[in-house]
């Protein structure tokens, strides 16, 4: 190597440098440029990476936020569930760290959503002392160099356009550090909106349009049968459903009559257990009505005199949101002979002798 360089120098000196010194100067400059470039590449490659604090999260969907604009604020966020209900508060845990050597001042953090979404509420439920919620913004105390603070905040998204089921969003942080203003965006994991499912349960003697559905005396008379119609309806907007089932029990003194109507699904009754179930394998949106109606008969007994006997009890439902995968379930209020939705017969359910 040394010999080769020496030979190259002699040849170069004899041919160019002796005749013109500018050749020598040009080669030296070229050599420095090459060395500088090599050094830069080495520095870039081996310089330390930006610091990221990953909090130990063992049960939740985690989102890592990093600044996009230079500054010392680091934000870790933790979205407890990315499937959310419209109108229901959901929890966002955030961790703030000053990674620099100067104090971070006047820190404000604002959730950013696309313009068509609105956030109805931001609530600092766990009340970390350094966070205040003012006008939809989180206002924080100053962060000293190296200081880490954590906060639980609760947000509620009220409105989205009809078709939107997915929300992209970010946290916008605005602060001052060492006399400079910084604005950093910390992107967050997308939110999925859980379908808005209600199971309507209704009891009627006359339909809302006035048709006689039931039969027998109203108010019910001891020793006489009165037949009522019970309706369950899937009232769903948002996402398709699968595996819908509504289960209920017929109380003592109530029997299932033979008449029913179904717009979808299957209806089964286990007479020995007095349990009934209505199941729908798949319930796509905008695919018509999902309703079952069935007739029950009350044969009022002596101990039901002066009461509104129950017609259906232990009503519960299960369903899966086909988009979010969320399992939905709930229990519903039993139905009795008071028939609050029956404009003709409501309040006439008390059994008389």
């Amino acid at each position: 190597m040394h010999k080769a360089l020496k030979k190259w120098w002699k040849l170069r000196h004899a041919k160019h440098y002796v005749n013109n010194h500018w050749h020598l100067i040009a080669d030296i400059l070229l050599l420095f440029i090459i060395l500088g470039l090599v050094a830069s590449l080495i520095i870039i490659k081996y310089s330390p990476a930006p610091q990221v604090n990953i909090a130990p999260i063992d049960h939740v969907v985690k989102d890592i936020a990093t600044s996009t604009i230079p500054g010392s604020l680091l934000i870790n966020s933790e979205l407890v569930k990315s499937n959310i209900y419209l109108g229901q508060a959901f929890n966002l845990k955030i961790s703030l760290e000053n990674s620099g050597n100067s104090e971070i001042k006047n820190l404000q953090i604002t959730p950013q959503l696309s313009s068509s979404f609105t956030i109805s509420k931001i609530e600092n439920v766990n009340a970390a002392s350094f966070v205040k919620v003012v006008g939809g913004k989180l206002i924080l105390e100053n962060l000293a160099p190296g200081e880490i603070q954590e906060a639980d905040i609760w947000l509620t998204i009220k409105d989205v356009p009809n078709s939107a089921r997915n929300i992209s969003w970010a946290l916008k942080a605005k602060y001052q550090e060492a006399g400079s203003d910084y604005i950093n965006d910390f992107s967050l994991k997308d939110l999925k909106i859980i379908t808005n499912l209600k199971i309507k349960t209704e009891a009627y003697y006359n339909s809302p349009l006035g048709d006689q559905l039931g039969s027998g005396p109203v108010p019910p008379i001891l020793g006489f049968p009165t037949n009522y119609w019970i309706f369950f309806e899937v009232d769903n907007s948002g996402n398709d459903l699968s595996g819908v089932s509504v289960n209920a029990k017929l109380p003592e003194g109530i029997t299932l009559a033979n008449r029913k109507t179904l717009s979808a699904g299957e209806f089964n009754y286990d007479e020995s257990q007095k349990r009934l179930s209505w199941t729908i394998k798949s319930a796509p949106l905008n695919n018509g009505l999902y309703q079952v109606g069935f007739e029950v008969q009350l044969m009022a007994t002596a101990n039901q005199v002066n009461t509104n006997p129950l017609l259906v009890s232990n009503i519960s439902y299960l369903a899966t949101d086909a988009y979010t995968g969320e399992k939905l379930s709930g229990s519903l209020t039993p139905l009795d002979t008071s028939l609050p939705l029956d404009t003709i017969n409501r309040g006439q359910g008390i059994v008389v002798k």
Partner: protein
Amino acid sequence: MKKIAFILIIFCFLIPTLPSLASEKNPKLVNYFLHWSITESEAREMAKWDFLVLDMEVQENSPSELRLIRQLNPKIKIIAYISSQNLFNPDFNSNESVLRKKLAQNIDDSWWLRDDRGNRLSDWPSAYVLNVTDSCGKNYNGQKFNEYLPEFVAGNILNTGLWDGVFYDNVWNGASWFNAGNISLTNNGLRNSGNDLDVAWKNGVKKILSKTRNLLPQKIVVANGSFIWDYQNYLNGWMLENFPTPWENGGTWTGVIQSYLKLSNNSQNYHIVNASATGPNDYVRFRYSLASTLLGNGYFSFDYGPENHAQLWWYDEYNNDLGDYQTDAYNLLDKTNSTIKPGLWRRDYTNGIAIVNSTDKEQRYIFVKEEFDKIRGTQDTKINNGQKINWISVAPRDGIILLKRPTVIRDSWFVNGNFFRIFNSSGSQIRNGFFAYVDKYQGSQPLLFHDLLSRGSEQILSVSKGYLTLTSAGKQILSFRPYGAFKGSFAIAAGDVSGDSREEIVTGAGLGGGPQVMVYDSSGKIKTSFFAYDKKFRGGVNVAVGDLNGDGKAEIVTGAGPGGGPHVRVFDSKGNAIINFMAYDKNFSGGVNVAVGDVDGDGLQEIVTGAGQGGGPQVRIFNNLGIPKTSFMAYDLNYRSGIFVALSDINNDGVMEILTGISGF
């Protein structure tokens, strides 16, 4: 040859097993109308009955009215009334007495029944009794009265072609009870013994009946009087007058019903229960006797009774055909005991039940798993109030007709599970609404119950996931996709579009499909197809089928689905539009549902429409040319969810009812 014989034998065995659509009408009504002439308006009213007993003089005094009745009701049976053993003074009401005078002209003086003093005997004002026995003398033709009378009937009445038979009144089973037994059959001044009187009288009556049967073997012969089984061999029916007939089997309800059921179980089937009333509003007596009649297979008649058999009273109960009987009568108070006794008796029919309380006290009965509609009447609205019931209270010696609740719609397609109201063409709700739901099919499936194959039993066309399936007696006999890959729903109708006496299946693509109408034969082979509206339209097309112009071919009526205007079009079998009109305001775009049928009984088909979603609940009825006839609101004016229309003869009166369907209730 053996094979053919074998097939024929199998076929003969199979025929009776097929459920029949040609059900017997019940109640069967007879009008026992004994005026000697009838007016045209009376004739028009009488045409509503199934069976008429009219005085023989009507053939002379009102022959055109008789013909009018048959023209209005080709199925009606009309028989001529004549007394078997007495004769009015022929001068009585002489202007109208033609046949009686003729009959009297040939009455031999020896034929009058006389007592031991030779006095003619009378059993009715202005009428004298004739001697039906062989003990009387002969006329100039060498005939006794019991020979003369059948010949008079055959030669002067039944020969006119105006009658289906004869009704012999005053048929006695003996004569010893009459005139305290003071009868001299030979007019020799000596009374006959009671036994001699009865035996001779029975034999004489049998001669009349026997000869009538011989002379008129194919005609209906019905008698009224005192019943004995010996007479039945010659008769097609017996009348129990003034129910419970005082002179029959003790005159009690139990006794008379025993006789009636014994009679009506006989194959001869023109037995009549005639009940008498204090007036047309004697509803309790009416229901009691009607429901009692329905315990057997006879005909029912209701009037003032023996003093005045000539009424045109029509009752709410008559407007509902109960169809074929399904059970014998059974006592709800003692179900395992078939002995006729006072009780709460019930008999089931295809479309309803008859209940009669023959006890002396009110009876209540709870239907454990059943529900019925009371008739929605205009007369005794306290009883026939149209309510849906699950228990009943029946007053002593009263009865009631209850209607079974419909569960499906026949001859017009419907969406399984929808709720339907039932209207007549005037827009009156005639029954309680119901959920049209068939358990073995999925909810929301389009279904059509119809005798597509003219087998005398209905088949079921169903739509699911783009497939159209034809099922007969529980077996799938055809399944295909009328629209290829299109998996959406579609409308279905059936009718003889091509005029080949076989019905075709007509479909209209549903929402999401083009407005394509397909016509298939019953084997699923395409016969024709066309676009009812612009090809690019994707709101679907509703279809109905009916012979609007009476040319023997059914036309296809279409209604545009949602998104189009309320266009209704009528196409011939080749898909040529022959009528086009707007069913609603031209700016309405919620779609229009269509149905076709005779909803007002005028013999012509009407087009009935219902507005789709967003429209009001207005049902419109157009004539066969698309010109508006009438309309009504099926729901509250503010209802805007759209109404489906279907036509079906719910009460089996031959006129289609209009059914308006909504999703949900």
